[in-house]
C-alpha cells in the first residue's frame, strides 16, 4: 500500500452509514500519548525524533497491528497536503519539520501520527454517530501500542502531554456534523454560543475558525482531566442529538409550505452547476455540494447517493485533484480539472474517476 493507491479509494468514514449519518458525517476520537523516556517533540533532537519514530514503527510491526507506516518528513509538499486533505494528518504535522510520520489502516479508520505536538496522536474515525464503536477501536489500538511502548503517565495527572490542555485522559471526543440549514437560517451562531457555554469547541472541517467550509463543523470536548473517557463520551453523546434536532427543525422550516419551492430551486441549481460547470473554485464546490447533500437528505434529489457527495468534498480538494491527474496544476488548471472531475462523477453510470481523460 502507498499514497498513490489512496487516490482510487476513500476512507470508510465517508460511507454515509451509521446512525444519524444524514447530519453526523463521522465520529472521531483522538488520544495524545508520549513516550516516558524522551523529551516532548518540541524539545527532542533530530536523532531522538528518529528513535521515537522507529520505536513506534517497531511496536506496530512486532505487535502485528494492521497499520501502514508512512514517513512524512521525506514526502513532497503535495503528498503531505494530500494526507492532510484526507484527514489522516493534522495541519501541525503537515507543516512541522524533522522526522515524523503517520501510520494508518487500509480502511483509513485509524491513523497514528508520530512526532506531532505529542509523540503519538492516535485517531479513529467511523461514519455516523458511533462514538461507542470508535472508543472500542481506539482503546484496543492504544492497548496494543502500550504493550511495547512505555507511556509517560502519572497516577495523579494521568497521561502526560506537551500542553497542559491535553493532560489526563489525553482524549478529544468529536463529531463532524453537517449543518447547512442552521447556517442558512442564521441560527448557527446561537448554537455555537450554547456549545461554548458548556465547554465544547467548534471548528471547521479542516480545523479552521467559524467560517467553515461546506457547512461542516467539528464539535469536541476540551476538558481532559478529572473526567473519565466514558464520561466525556457520554457528555458529547447527550449534546449531539439536540444539535441534530435543531438542524432537522431548521430543514423542516426550509421545506415548509411557503419556502419549499425556493429551496428546491436552490438545490437544483447547485446540482446543475456542479454537473455542467467547466471551471469551478474549491469554495464554490464546497458551497454547492453542501446544498446538494442537504437536497438528497430531503428527497429533493433522487439520482445521487450520499457516499459519492461525501467523497467529492474530499476528492475535489487541490492536492487530491493533482494526485488524481498525476501532475502539479496551477489554480486555473485546478478549477478546470475540478469541474471536469465533477461532471464526470455526477453523470449517470460513470463513477470511476479513472475514466476521466
Amino acid at each position, binding site marked *: 500500500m502507498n499514497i498513490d493507491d489512496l487516490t482510487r479509494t476513500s476512507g470508510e468514514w465517508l460511507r454515509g452509514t451509521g446512525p444519524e449519518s444524514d447530519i453526523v458525517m463521522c465520529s472521531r476520537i483522538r488520544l495524545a500519548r*508520549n*513516550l*516516558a*523516556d*524522551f*523529551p*516532548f517533540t*518540541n*524539545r527532542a*533532537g533530530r536523532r*531522538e525524533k528518529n528513535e521515537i519514530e522507529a*520505536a513506534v514503527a517497531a511496536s506496530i510491526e512486532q505487535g502485528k497491528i494492521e497499520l501502514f507506516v508512512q514517513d512524512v518528513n521525506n514526502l513532497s509538499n503535495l503528498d503531505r497536503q494530500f494526507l492532510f486533505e484526507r484527514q489522516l494528518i493534522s495541519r501541525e504535522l503537515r507543516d512541522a519539520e524533522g522526522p515524523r510520520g503517520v501510520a494508518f489502516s487500509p480502511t483509513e479508520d485509524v491513523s497514528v501520527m508520530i512526532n506531532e*505536538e505529542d509523540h503519538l496522536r492516535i485517531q479513529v474515525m467511523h461514519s455516523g454517530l458511533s462514538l461507542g464503536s470508535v472508543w472500542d477501536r481506539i*482503546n484496543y489500538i*492504544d*492497548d496494543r501500542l*502500550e*504493550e*511495547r511502548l*512505555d*507511556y*509517560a*503517565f*502519572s*497516577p*495523579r*495527572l*494521568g*497521561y*502526560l502531554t*506537551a*500542553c*497542559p*490542555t491535553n*493532560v*489526563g*485522559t489525553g*482524549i478529544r471526543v468529536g463529531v463532524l456534523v453537517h449543518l447547512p440549514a442552521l447556517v442558512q437560517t442564521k441560527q448557527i451562531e446561537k448554537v455555537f454560543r450554547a456549545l*461554548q457555554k458548556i*465547554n465544547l*469547541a467548534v*471548528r471547521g472541517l479542516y480545523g*479552521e*475558525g*467559524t467560517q467553515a467550509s461546506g457547512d461542516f463543523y467539528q464539535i469536541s470536548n*476540551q*476538558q*481532559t*482531566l*478529572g*473526567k*473519565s*473517557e*466514558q*464520561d466525556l463520551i457520554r457528555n458529547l453523546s447527550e449534546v449531539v442529538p439536540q444539535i441534530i434536532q435543531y438542524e432537522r427543525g431548521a430543514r423542516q422550516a426550509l421545506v415548509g409550505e411557503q419556502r419549499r419551492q425556493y429551496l428546491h430551486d436552490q438545490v437544483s441549481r447547485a446540482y446543475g452547476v456542479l454537473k455542467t460547470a467547466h471551471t469551478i*473554485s474549491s469554495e464554490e464546490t464546497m458551497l454547492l455540494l453542501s446544498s446538494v447533500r442537504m437536497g438528497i437528505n430531503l428527497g429533493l434529489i433522487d439520482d445521487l447517493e450520499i457516499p459519492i457527495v461525501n467523497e467529492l468534498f474530499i476528492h475535489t480538494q*487541490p492536492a487530491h485533484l493533482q494526485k488524481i491527474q498525476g501532475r502539479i496544476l496551477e*489554480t*486555473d488548471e*485546478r478549477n478546470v480539472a475540478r469541474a471536469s472531475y465533477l461532471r464526470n462523477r455526477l453523470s449517470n453510470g460513470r463513477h470511476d474517476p479513472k475514466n476521466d481523460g
Partner: protein
Amino acid sequence: MTCQNCKREATVHVTEEINGKRREMHLCARCAREAGYDSVDDPPMFGLEGILQSFILAHVGEMVGELSRRFCPLCGLKFMDFRGQGRLGCPNDYAMFDHGLAPIVRRVQGASRHVGKIPARRGAAAAGLNRLKLRAQLRDAIEREDFEEAARLRDRLRPAEDDR
C-alpha cells in the same frame, strides 16, 4: 480565487474601509502574513488554548524567586520558556514545575486529578524516567565531546530497549 499579489489560491479575504472607501483584498496565506493580516488565516484562539494563553500571560510573568530560576535538568526547559510557548519540554516537567503548573492546570481543566484509563503495565513510566535521565546525560556527554561516556550511555540505553 487567485491571490491578487501572486498566483497562489487566495485563502484570506479582507474588507477594509480606508478614508471612507471600501477595499476588498484577496490574498494567499503567505502574502496575507506579509501584509500583516497574520491571524486571519489561523484558527482563532478559543477554548482552553485561549484560556491557557491568557492565564499564562497574566500570572506566570509575575512569578518571581525560586520558580523563575528553576529549570528541568532532563530537557533544559526553564519555567519562563513555558510562559512563551505554552508547551512543556518533557514528562519530568510536571513534577519539576508542579508548584507553578498546578494552579494553571486547575484553572484550565477545572480539575486536578486524573480519572479514567491507566496503562496496563505498571512501572513502565518509572523505567522510562530512568532512561530519560540517561538520555539527558548522553546529550551532555555528546556536547562535552566525551565520546567514551557517550558510548557507555548508549550501551546502557540499548539493552533496556531490546529487553522489552
